[in-house]
C-alpha cells in the first residue's frame, strides 16, 4: 500500500503524491511515458531510493526508514526483474540465478545450483546455459536468466521493470508468457512497469497510469479502452497529438 509518496531530484518533482493499493495475488501494471518516474516509483517501494514524503506498507509493515537488517528480511519476500537484466558479469549464469539463495540465505552451493538449473528450465533454458557467462547470451536469454533469478527463491511479490524493453515482438511475447506462467505458478503478487501496451494488456489484472507525478487513472485491464481519460486514451493508442506533450527540438 502506497500513500502520499513524493520524491524529487533537485527541483524536478518526479513523484507528487502517489496513492496505490495492490492486493495479494494481483498483477498490477503501472504505465506511463519514458522518464515519467515509473522506475523511481518501484525503487521507492523497494527501498532502493528513500522517498521525501509518504508511506509504503508491505504486508502491513512500514518500509520507509526501515533499518538494513529488517529491509533484508523484507526483500527476501521479493523478486525483481530489472530493465537491463542487471546480471553479474563475473559469475556464470547458474550462480547469477542462485545468488540470492547462496549469499542472501546461506544455502549450500550444490543445493542452490540444483534449484538454479530447475528455474532455468522453467524459463525455457537448458542446463548447458548455466555454465555460460551473461556476456555470451543474447538479450532475450539474458532477460530469461534475470527472470529465473527473480523467481529463484519463490518470492511472494515480484517486481518487473520494463520486462520486454529492447526485445523483438516474438521474444517479448515469450517473456510475457513466462511472466504469466511464473506469477500464476507461484501465486505471487506482481507489480510491473512498462510502456509496452501489448505486454500490459496481456499480463495485467489492473492498470494504473502515471503522469506528471500522480496516478491519473487506475482500473481493470478490460476497462482501459473505455477509460474516458484523454491522457490514457492518447497513451494507449500511441498518438502524437493529444494532451500529453513530448518535447521535440527541431534540428
Amino acid at each position, binding site marked *: 500500500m502506497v500513500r502520499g509518496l513524493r520524491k524529487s531530484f533537485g527541483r524536478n518533482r518526479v513523484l507528487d503524491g502517489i496513492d496505490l493499493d495492490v492486493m495479494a495475488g494481483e498483477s498490477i501494471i503501472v504505465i506511463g511515458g519514458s522518464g515519467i518516474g515509473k522506475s523511481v516509483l518501484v525503487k521507492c517501494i523497494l527501498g532502493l531510493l528513500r522517498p521525501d514524503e509518504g508511506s509504503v506498507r508491505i504486508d502491513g509493515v512500514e518500509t520507509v526508514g526501515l533499518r538494513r537488517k529488517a529491509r533484508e528480511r523484507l526483500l*527476501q519476500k521479493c523478486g525483481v526483474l530489472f530493465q537491463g537484466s542487471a546480471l553479474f558479469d563475473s559469475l556464470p549464469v547458474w550462480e547469477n540465478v542462485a545468488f540470492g539463495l547462496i549469499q542472501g540465505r546461506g544455502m549450500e552451493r550444490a543445493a542452490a545450483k540444483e534449484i538454479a538449473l530447475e528455474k532455468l528450465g522453467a524459463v525455457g533454458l537448458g542446463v548447458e546455459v548455466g555454465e555460460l557467462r551473461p556476456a555470451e547470451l543474447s538479450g532475450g536469454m539474458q532477460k530469461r536468466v534475470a527472470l529465473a533469478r527473480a523467481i529463484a527463491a519463490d518470492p511472494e511479490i515480484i517486481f518487473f521493470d520494463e520486462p520486454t524493453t529492447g526485445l523483438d515482438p516474438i521474444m517479448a511475447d515469450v517473456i510475457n508468457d513466462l511472466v504469466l506462467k511464473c506469477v500464476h505458478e507461484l501465486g505471487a503478487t506482481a507489480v510491473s512497469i512498462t510502456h509496452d501496451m501489448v505486454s500490459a494488456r496481456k499480463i495485467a489484472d489492473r492498470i494504473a497510469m502515471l503522469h506528471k507525478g500522480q496516478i491519473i487513472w487506475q482500473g481493470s485491464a478490460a476497462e482501459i479502452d473505455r477509460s474516458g481519460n484523454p491522457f490514457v486514451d492518447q497513451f494507449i493508442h500511441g498518438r502524437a497529438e493529444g494532451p500529453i506533450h513530448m518535447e521535440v527540438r527541431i534540428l
Partner: protein
Amino acid sequence: MLKALASLGAATLAFMAATGRIVIFTLTALATGLSPPYYLRVILRSMLDIGYFSLPVVGLTAIFTGMVLALQSYTGFSRFAAESAIATVVVLSVTRELGPVIAGLMVAGRVGAAMAAEIGTMRVTDQIDALTTLSTDPLRYLVLPRLLAGLITLPLLVVVADIIGVFGGYLVSIYKFGFNPETYLDRTFQYLHTSDVVSGLVKAAVFGFVVALMGCYHGYNSRGGAQGVGQATTYAVVSASILILVFDYGITQALFSQ
C-alpha cells in the same frame, strides 16, 4: 576580490564535503566487517587480482628502479670516492621508500582503475541495486573484501619488489661497475635494520588500503553511464596517487623524524 574569495570558499567547502563523504563511506564499509557473513571467495579473488596479477608490472618496475638507483648513486658518490656506500643506499632507498611508493603507484594505475571500472559499471547497470534486492549488502560484498585484499596484498608485493629492486642494484654494481659480489652483499645487509623493512611494509599496507578505497569509492558513486564510469576510473587513479604521496610523507615523518 570578493569573487576570488567566494571561489576559494566554495572549493574549500567542496573539498571538506568530499572528504567527509569518503570518511563516512570508509567507516560504513569497515563496520560491515564487525559481523558475518564474510565473503572469503571474494577476498581471495581480490587478493589474486591485486597481488598475483600485479607481480609482472611491479617486478619490472622494481628491477629498473634498483638498476637506475645504482647508476645514479655511482655517478654521484664517485665524485667524493664514496662508491662503497652504493649498496647501503640502494637497499635503504628501496626498502624504506621506492619499493612501497612505486609498487603503490603501479597498483593504483592497474588495480585502482580496474576496481573503479568494475564497480562503476555495476552501478550504472543496476547490478548494485540487484545485490540489495538479493539480500546482499553491496558494501559488505563488493567493498570490504577489496579493502582487506589491498591491505594484506600490497605488503606481500612490496617484499617481492624490495628483493627484485635490490637485485637490480646488485646487477648494475657487479656487472657494470665491477664491484665484488661478496663485498656488495655484505654492505647491503650491514646497515639494514628490521625497522627499515617494517616501515616499508607499513607504508605498503596503507597504500594498498588507499588504492582499494579510492577505486571502490569512485566506482560506487559513479553516475551517468559510460562517461561517468570513465571519469570514476580517472578520479580513482589520480586521487590514489596523490594520497599515496601524502601518506608517504606523513608516515615517513612519523616513523623517522627526530
